[in-house]
């Protein structure tokens, strides 16, 4: 029984919290639960991991991406890139679909909210080369949205967002609710 318990403890070892902060040069975003983390991982399409529906390009930036960490085989969910622009990480990671890369960024670890193994990718390194910032979203958006007019950040000019707000209002409850709220709130 002791031997079995020992063996089980060995199995449990990788699940224990490991420190991936050593060597990280991630920039703080002053988030309550942020922990710097740098590690090697395989870039995966998360939907593919679960369902076996696996396009060769991991969805080309349109599917959510994960990082299968080499040290412990933990599937880390990525949900933010390096830009302060309401931008995810899929377009930054999809070009590396199936490749093993190094990443640096911030892990969110907040037991109160249930945040675990959720990651903001700030930098990517391939084959020991130069670290590149994970900041591709706005470039890709600009390329895919050539007709967006006006000035200002992408999220003010995005035609799909503009259409939603024009139809359903800023609160999503209709223009009449917006009108009454704005008159009362400001």
């Amino acid at each position, binding site marked *: 029984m002791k031997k079995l318990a020992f063996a089980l403890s060995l199995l449990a070892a990788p699940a224990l919290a490991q420190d991936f902060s050593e060597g990280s040069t991630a920039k703080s975003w002053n988030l309550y639960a942020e922990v710097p983390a740098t590690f090697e991982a395989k870039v995966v399409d998360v939907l593919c991991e*679960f369902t076996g529906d696996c396009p060769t390009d991991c969805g080309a930036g349109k599917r959510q991406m994960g990082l299968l960490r080499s040290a412990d085989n933990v599937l880390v*969910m990525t949900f933010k890139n390096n830009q302060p622009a309401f931008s995810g990480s899929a377009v930054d990671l999809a070009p590396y679909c199936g490749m093993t890369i190094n990443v640096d960024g911030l892990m969110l670890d907040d037991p109160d909210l249930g945040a675990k193994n959720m990651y903001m990718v700030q930098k990517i390194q391939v084959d020991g080369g130069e670290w590149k910032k994970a900041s591709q979203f706005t470039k890709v958006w600009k390329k895919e949205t050539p007709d967006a007019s006006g000035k200002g950040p992408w999220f003010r000019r995005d035609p799909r967002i503009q259409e*939603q707000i024009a139809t359903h209002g800023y609160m999503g409850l209709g223009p009449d609710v917006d009108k009454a709220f704005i008159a009362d709130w400001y």
Partner: protein
Amino acid sequence: MRKILTALACLAAFPATAAEGERIQVTGELIDTWCYYSGVMGGPDAVVGSAHHTCALWCSAGGIPVGLQAEDGTIYMVLKIEQDDNLAGGDTALRLASHVIEADGMHYERDGINYLVVDSVISDLGITNLNHEDYGPVPAFAIPKSARQ
């Protein structure tokens, strides 16, 4: 002992692959996971519902994962909605931002995170959490000055 270690080594090398999903029906709001978990825009009650709708649109269009916050508080990372697997900025998730939906789909759990592949949106209840009355727009700049006239 050697046999046990060998068996455990095999298990460790191939941890529970998530292919073992469970069919569930779950009702909840489609939320913006970055703002919810990071706290960057405020507490968890402020970054959902009508108060946070515009920001939820921005984050959804920006490719941030959409979560389904169930009535019991569980949050599922949504990977697909019906035929639309573009959950990083796709149209379906954008259209349903902040809506409460009743979903039928496959639930997977791995490494502390719940995932949901929605096969069917049984019902779309729209936006039901009218918390803009308490919090105003979150963030405050969600409604631009030009729209406040």
